[in-house]
């Protein structure tokens, strides 16, 4: 690995800020070529994760992760749709470990834990 994924992501963020969004396709293509030239193709996924993370920190996008014990249907699914804004990345996961309820996480940094397991854990920690 010639450079860490964080450095590639930071460089891309800076280039996008300087060159403007109209050149974004060209910049991403250039990055892809550079990564291949440096032999860091295996890091593509990590670079993408870092890049998304940096956009989140800058407040440009929002990633919503909704975890539930079972597949959300009916009113719950509709409720989730109401909190999603245009441009948000929505990820839905199933975590049977939660027993019941749901957890909403924004940008992997802030979380609303409405799961039964979370409530039980809280009782024992306090």
């Amino acid at each position, binding site marked *: 690995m010639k450079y860490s994924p964080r450095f590639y992501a930071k460089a891309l963020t800076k280039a996008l800020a300087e060159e403007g969004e109209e050149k974004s396709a060209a910049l991403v293509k250039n990055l892809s070529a550079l990564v291949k030239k440096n032999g860091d193709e295996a890091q593509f996924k990590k670079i993408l994760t870092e890049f998304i993370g940096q956009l989140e920190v800058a407040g440009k996008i929002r990633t919503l992760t909704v975890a539930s014990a079972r597949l959300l249907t009916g009113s719950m699914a509709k409720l989730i749709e109401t909190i999603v804004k245009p441009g948000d990345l929505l990820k839905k996961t199933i975590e049977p470990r939660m027993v019941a309820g749901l957890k909403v*996480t924004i940008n992997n940094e*802030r979380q609303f834990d409405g799961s039964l397991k979370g409530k039980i*854990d809280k*009782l*024992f*920690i306090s």
Partner: protein
Amino acid sequence: MAYEIIEKLKKEIEGYHEKAEWQEIGRVIEVGDGIIKIVGLREVMSQEILSVNTKDGPRLALALSLEEESVGSLVIDDYLSIEVGDEVKRTGEILSVEVGEELIGRVIDPLGNPLDGLGPVFPKDSKPQRNFLEAKAPSVLDREPVNTPLHTGLKAIDAMIPIGRGQRELVIGDRQVGKTAIVLDTILNQRNDIKRRTPICIYVAIGQKESKIVKFAETLKKFGAMDYSLIVAAPASSPAALWYLAPYAGCAIGEYFRDKGEDAFIAYDDLSKHAWAYRQISLLLRRPPGREAYPGDIFYLHSRLLERAAKLSKEKGGGSLTALPIVETQLGDVSAYIPTNLISITDGQIYLESDLFYEGLRPALNVGISVSRVGSAAQTKAMKRVAGRLRLAHSQFRELQAFAQFSSDVDEATRKKITEGQKINEVLKQSDLSPLPVEKEVCLFYAVLNGYFESVSVEEVRQTEKDLLDYLVRFHESDVLSPLRETGELTGEVEEALKNALKRFSEK
């Protein structure tokens, strides 16, 4: 156990109020031997307790290194179930330990959990005070000079290296030379010092063998010293995190008594192992290593701990916390990194030497390089009167003894001095678990320094000492021992009574 869980759940469910709130979270990105690295948690505080959600339930960790991109944490729970990707939440609580009178007589771990099998330390419905493990030391204005003795019951120490309440005195020496024995005797002797407040004694065992801790606790129990003592144990089998936290937990407990206006005494056994634990944690957290691979803040690690030992001013309640840290040397090397740090932090050191130990001098105290910077301010007037001459006579003897080794023929005066010195040496010998009340020490030194042991041969000194003390207890409790104990002074009247007693004893 099941009943307790159900009862706890029932109470919590009855009084449960749902608070819908957003929490800051992070994720584990690296797991090491007892440490984890976390991304996220940008607003976490140093020393904050974190909860890691593992597949086996929540595990607690302590935020230690707050870095630009990650948080280095110390796991204070079982770390084997933590995996990369586990979610971490803040608790908003700084690491603290429950403190109170209930701790007396108990053996606990650094997190306050009982280890003695006697059940919970605090009653179920009580809300004990919590003291932070890391706390600020009292300021200059909150303190007053050390002026009250803390008698160890060891003749050599009470006479020549006196320890005062609120002092920090280092016990330094190689392994197996009697460092822990000094602490043990000091704790046992607090029962003898009936004229002063009995300090609450805290023994902090860091990385000690469990068998040794059990033996220590059993000895305290046997002599009734557990009535005013407690043990904070992080045995050799416990993780480095607990070794690192143990002295701070002990100190937080000591501060509770100090701040209440009481006297407390704390022994850290030993800070070499504490430094090793901190080195291990720091290296795993990838902090830059310095000399002997210790991290850069190793001095601060111990100085901030030992600065919390203090004698508080009357306005602050007049309590005190006396610290007796122990440090182990390798082959008598006092110039190693940790020993020199501790020597410079403390108010003096009691240096124990292997050679003296094997010569039969126990405690194996090297009087030449042992020192107490508080000095005679922490001695009773009676002890001050006899101790000055004792130290002089002892050092003269050591010097003459060295010369006498080279010449077979020495003059009468020198021979007399050497014999007197040998007798003083004999008097200073003391077997373990037999601390002596200070009034008896004074009488003994008075006798040996004023020629009352002249007719006794060196070999008979120890037996004579025993007979003399028995004699004084039987016939002179009221006119010699009791006034000395009550007033701490060797007044003209008491001195006269002591002289007469010694004269009669010599004639026997």
